[in-house]
């Protein structure tokens, strides 16, 4: 029995057999070969390189320079690597010296190179490790054919164990069978974590070397509450965990029981509780948990996996799938918010020195109008299927908003010309997530139908803290008086302009902060689905009067510590069992 400690990123307990997947589903066993087979394996390796080069050359020339320029560049880099004779020599030498199969040699050599890259201090070079893995995959595809372990065809309950999980892999998870996630890498904001939380699956990440301790068929306990993974637990441990798990499920059921009940305070004020989703298959979970619609549909997943840009039809199908689940309940689709994350930065050939403040999100879209238009067309087309609203992220000034609206109008005109139906009155809103937007909310409010406050980014930009950086993450707090002041500003401006307002950042899913938000005037929130029952419970346990008092007191305080402590106490009074 091995006990490994990592970071708990999604609560719950799960006990099941492990399903180990390599990055991109390849598990290469080390099978020794006979000395006489070395020539064959070497030739296989050489052919794999040749075929991969041919495949890539074709893909690269098929990319249009203007539209697919960046992707073309990436292919060009990969081609150079594949042509690199010292790389090929390393692989064939390894086959000879260690007497292993071509695929084992390719995998081992390339991963070693990737880890060398990853260790280089220059962040830009270390991102190239992702390219090496891509090349490894391409070569392995040649060697192994299309036989891949398909996560979509599971027949029994498993805990997925991997070094790291890519967005494509997590998108295919079927909750019926995937009962837990454990990964070597990752953090609170990695894809595995986000997906696990929205599907309600326990998950532990940053286990560092779990994949080295685990073999096919091992039983695994994933304790997403304490951040522990136990490999091959003994009988006693299993029994303990089964009990613990039952307690936890009972609590879950009690909370689920309020799914049908409305989110209304004790003194009759209704709060609209919506869900945040990233993948279409999360929509059902929101419904199950009692959400009244989708307040934030993140659309980045369409871009994060592939070698090619998604087509308008790709967008349309993903959105249609979600909107149909919700029929006449609101679905707010946020346009592309890509830019400052690992996936897009590693695709660049020339690094941005400060990507977080760089060409990302709506700015990126306004500089890539052909791509942006595809998404806008899909959103407009889907708007006839339900109550769809469109939301632009990271708007910092009115001019950006006007540009975005202008492009949307142009797209509407195109659809008119093509006689394609769409909702002409589609509500248009923006995320308020920068200090500039928050401070000029009164003026922005005149040109939109709704605001949604993105407390995560608003807090980061206001306090100048990267919450993913452990050295300073303790400075991050959404109840810092400066942040609260901005939030209050935005709420008041929205009320004055009589437009809808919601809060979609993590702040809304924290039991300690929800009363404060309500007391400040928030009547609509959008949160990750697993938290919906608990937050609804709190809403049903308080009076708006109490919340107003809480807000009033907090606004009079000027230290974050004081505010936090006060809110914790206030919450404990309402829901003692949650604390």
């Amino acid at each position: 029995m091995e006990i490994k400690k990592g970071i708990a990123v999604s609560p719950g307990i799960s006990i099941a057999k492990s399903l180990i997947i390599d990055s991109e589903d390849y598990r290469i066993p080390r099978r020794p070969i006979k000395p006489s087979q070395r020539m064959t394996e070497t030739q296989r390796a050489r052919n794999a390189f040749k075929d991969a080069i041919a495949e890539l050359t074709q893909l690269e020339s098929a990319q249009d320079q203007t539209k697919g320029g960046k992707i073309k560049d990436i292919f060009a880099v990969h081609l150079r690597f594949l042509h690199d004779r010292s790389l090929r020599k390393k692989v064939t030498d390894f086959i000879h010296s260690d007497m292993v199969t071509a695929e084992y040699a390719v995998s081992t050599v390339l991963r070693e190179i990737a880890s060398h890259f990853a260790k280089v201090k220059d962040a830009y070079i270390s991102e190239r490790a992702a390219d090496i893995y891509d090349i490894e995959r391409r070569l392995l595809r040649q060697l192994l054919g299309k036989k891949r372990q398909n996560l979509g065809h599971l027949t029994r309950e498993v805990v997925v164990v991997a070094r790291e999980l890519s967005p494509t892999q997590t998108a295919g998870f079927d909750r019926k069978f995937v009962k837990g996630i454990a990964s070597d890498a990752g953090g609170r904001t990695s894809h595995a974590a986000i997906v696990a939380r929205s599907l309600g699956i326990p998950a532990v990440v940053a286990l560092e070397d779990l994949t080295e301790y685990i073999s096919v068929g091992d039983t695994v306990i994933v304790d997403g509450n304490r951040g522990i993974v136990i490999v091959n637990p003994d009988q006693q441990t299993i029994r303990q965990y089964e009990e613990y798990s039952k307690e936890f499920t009972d609590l879950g059921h009690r909370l689920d029981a309020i799914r049908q009940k409305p989110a209304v305070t004790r003194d009759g004020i209704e709060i609209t509780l919506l869900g945040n989703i990233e993948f279409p298959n999360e929509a059902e979970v929101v419904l199950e948990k009692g959400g009244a619609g989708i307040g934030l549909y993140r659309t980045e997943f369409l871009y994060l996996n592939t070698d090619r840009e998604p087509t308008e039809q790709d967008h349309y199908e993903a959105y249609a799938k979600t909107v149909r689940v919700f029929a006449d309940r609101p679905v707010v689709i946020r346009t592309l918010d890509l830019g400052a994350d690992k996936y897009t930065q590693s695709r660049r050939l020339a690094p941005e020195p400060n990507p977080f403040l760089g060409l990302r999100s709506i700015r990126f879209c306004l500089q890539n109008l052909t791509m942006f238009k595809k998404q806008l067309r899909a959103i407009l087309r889907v708007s006839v299927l339900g109550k769809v609203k469109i939301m632009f992220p990271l708007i910092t000034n009115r001019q950006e908003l006007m540009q975005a609206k202008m492009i949307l109008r142009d797209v509407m005109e195109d659809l008119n010309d093509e006689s394609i139906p769409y909702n002409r009155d589609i509500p248009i809103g923006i995320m308020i997530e920068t200090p500039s937007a928050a401070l000029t909310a009164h003026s922005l409010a005149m040109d939109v139908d709704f605001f949604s406050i993105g407390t995560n980014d608003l807090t980061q930009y206001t306090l100048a803290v990267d919450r993913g950086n452990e050295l300073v993450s303790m400075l991050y707090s959404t109840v810092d008086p400066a942040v609260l002041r901005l939030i209050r500003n935005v709420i008041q401006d929205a009320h004055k302009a009589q437009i809808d307002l919601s809060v979609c950042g993590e702040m809304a899913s924290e039991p300690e902060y929800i009363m404060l938000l309500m007391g400040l005037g928030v009547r609509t929130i959008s949160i990750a689905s697993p938290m919906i029952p608990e937050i609804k419970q709190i809403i049903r346990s308080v009076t708006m009067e109490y919340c107003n008092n809480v807000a009033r007191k907090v606004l009079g305080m000027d230290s974050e510590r004081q505010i936090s402590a006060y809110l914790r106490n206030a919450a404990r009074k309402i829901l003692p069992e949650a604390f």
Partner: protein
Amino acid sequence: MKFRDFVCFEATITELQASDRDGVIVELVSSLDKTGRLGKGKCEEIIREVIKREKEASTGLGRGVAVPHVKHKAVKDVIAAIGLSSAGINFFALDKQPVFSVILLISPADEPDKHLQAMESVFKHLQQERFRKFLRQCRTTKHVEDLLIEADEDPSL
């Protein structure tokens, strides 16, 4: 797309005579018409379309610039004309500020991508305060042409 690919430099008006929005639109479309780029007898029709569209939704982006535009069969490629007004014009921009620089675009009816590429360029440069400032300061059509050509080469402008 670079400015030089679609801006018709001969049609530049460095001091717009009209003092109202519709008048400015008439002036700029007529200017393009004079260069022969609009096909025979389309001028009136195009003016009407641009004004109609402008009435539906202002293209005043704020910060003193406006980009009235329309799609029309009369042109095969995107063409644009620049107009400057030192007095300022009321374009009913919601920041309620007057407009000093107008870029009027006419795009081919069935080539939406060309229109978008031109808009991308326009947006990119109009975002830069320096560019807006320099544009306003131009006194001759040559100044405008030089500025746009320089902006084509220098993304920070």
